[in-house]
């Protein structure tokens, strides 16, 4: 194989996995794209990282990545956490591809728990790391039974879960891994992204691939596919609202992380998407806690929320 000879790390095939394995994964991906939301079993490999660190996502990325791709890896919206840094380095080393932290420049974005704030474009691929692909798992423990439920489109059980939420909390209290119906057919677990991100999946121009390494499943949402969050007629799906804008860049309508500052109740809310926040600050936007905060109206009433 010429790939092995010219690969960036001697002794490894391009992007770590051997070509036969990649072929097998690509087949699973093609099937997943053909049946949106359907969980395709695949022969997941041992990867040089523990389960729960994104072995599914890494295998999907390894199968689709090419030499001209630019890779971005995020973990909880951040480019600089351990998980994101090590996976980015892994592909820089084994595939020698260009990496970036800018959403707009990336062709493949591997993500854990977030969808970037920047609207994704056609040609980009979002790869999700999925811990538990089966949305019905905690309602029905038998795999044979959940498969049957999917096959028969028997999703009353999922609705029972939402009913229980409202009965207990007065509203649908599920805030992450919020179940969605894909293309009017399969109910899918969107991986543990906040439900804030669910609307971004709907009619997205980018291809969305989901890989679960331990559970050995791959599923997909092709571009321009209907993704509907499940709800009740009298309790419609709603995303979280934040009372304050980002303390560093003043962005509103984005997903914020709470950062505890001291042990006397001090806290700040900042963009969870670090790249988005940095870009805004570079453009001159400021928030209440940034060093050069110029007071209310500093951002000229502009909102950088391009969505």
């Amino acid at each position, binding site marked *: 194989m010429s790939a092995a000879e010219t690969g960036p790390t001697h002794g490894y095939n391009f992007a770590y996995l051997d070509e036969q394995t990649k072929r097998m994964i690509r087949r699973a991906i093609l099937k997943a794209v053909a049946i949106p939301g359907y969980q395709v079993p695949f022969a997941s490999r041992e990867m040089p990282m523990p389960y729960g660190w994104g072995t599914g996502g890494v295998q999907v990325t390894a199968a689709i990545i090419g030499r001209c791709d630019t890779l971005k890896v995020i973990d909880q919206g951040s480019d600089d956490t351990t998980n994101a840094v090590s996976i980015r380095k892994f592909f820089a080393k084994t595939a020698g591809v260009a990496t970036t932290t800018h959403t707009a420049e990336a062709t493949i974005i591997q993500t854990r728990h977030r969808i970037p704030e920047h609207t994704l474009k056609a040609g980009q691929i979002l790869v999700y790391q999925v811990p538990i692909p089966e949305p019905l798992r905690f309602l029905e423990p038998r795999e044979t039974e959940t498969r*049957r439920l999917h*096959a*028969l489109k*028997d999703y*009353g*059980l999922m*609705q*029972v879960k939402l*009913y*229980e939420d*409202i*009965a*207990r909390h007065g509203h649908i209290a599920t805030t992450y891994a919020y179940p969605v119906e894909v293309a009017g057919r399969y109910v899918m677990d969107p991986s543990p992204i906040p439900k804030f991100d669910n609307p971004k999946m709907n009619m997205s121009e980018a291809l969305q691939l989901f890989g679960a390494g331990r559970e050995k499943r791959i599923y997909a949402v092709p571009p321009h596919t209907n993704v509907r969050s499940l*709800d*009740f*007629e*009298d*309790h419609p799906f709603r995303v979280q609202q934040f009372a304050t804008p980002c303390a560093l860049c003043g962005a509103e309508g984005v997903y914020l992380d709470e950062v505890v500052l001291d042990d006397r109740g001090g806290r700040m809310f900042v963009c969870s998407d670090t790249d988005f926040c940095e870009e805004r600050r570079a453009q001159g936007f400021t928030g209440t806690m940034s060093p050069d905060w110029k007071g209310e109206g500093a951002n000229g009433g502009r909102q950088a929320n391009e969505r």
Partner: protein
Amino acid sequence: MSVDDDRPLLSTRGLTKYYGNRIGCADVSFDLYEGEVLAIVGESGSGKSTLLSLLANELAPTCGTVLYRMRDGETRDLATLSESERRLLLRTDWGFVRQDAREGLRMGVSAGGNVGERLMAVGSRHYGRIRATAGDWLQRVEIDTARIDDTPRSFSGGMRQRLQIARNLVTGPRLVFMDEPTSGLDVSVQARLLDLVRSLVREMGLAVIIVTHDLAVARLLSHRIMVMRAGHVIEAGLADQVLDDPREAYTQLLVSSVLAA
């Protein structure tokens, strides 16, 4: 009354189930009409529960057929139903009250959710209406509506059985299977449950097939009785006739072994 009433709701011919060489039940044939309550009695191991599972399409028979008249009036062979048709039938037109409430209920889900599950499964998506219907049914089975958000784990045995009944009847089925619904309950609770079942059967015009080893239950509820022994139906007839004037020696023994209170 429609013209369909003179056709049986459920009819079975030569129903047989072998477990390897052992007989589960053999050559059972009968007709069940709308609004009719049929009790299947016999000692443990006589094939009662096997027969019930065959009728409810949970087990595949070795030979024989079960015909069911669907809501649209068409009579279908249950063996030819597709899986999705079978499931739809199970949750709309049929009910199954289990002996062990833990099998028939979702123990981790609130009472309201348990009753509402069938409604949601057939496409109901309005929380307020589902909850109102669930509350209404809890009242009908004499469960305090204040407990609508409690899980069945915190319910007594009798309440669990009543909740199971509510959960099964919420979609207005025409046929309900009951597998020893009163065993394991104390006598006063049994009496109330039987009372409840009897009034619901009358109100809703339900057809019921009830499996029991308790002849008192059979006498209270049923119109007709089938006595089973070693997989075979040895005697069948009107309830009073079978209980007061048993023909078979085994039935005579069964009837005479009931303890007088």
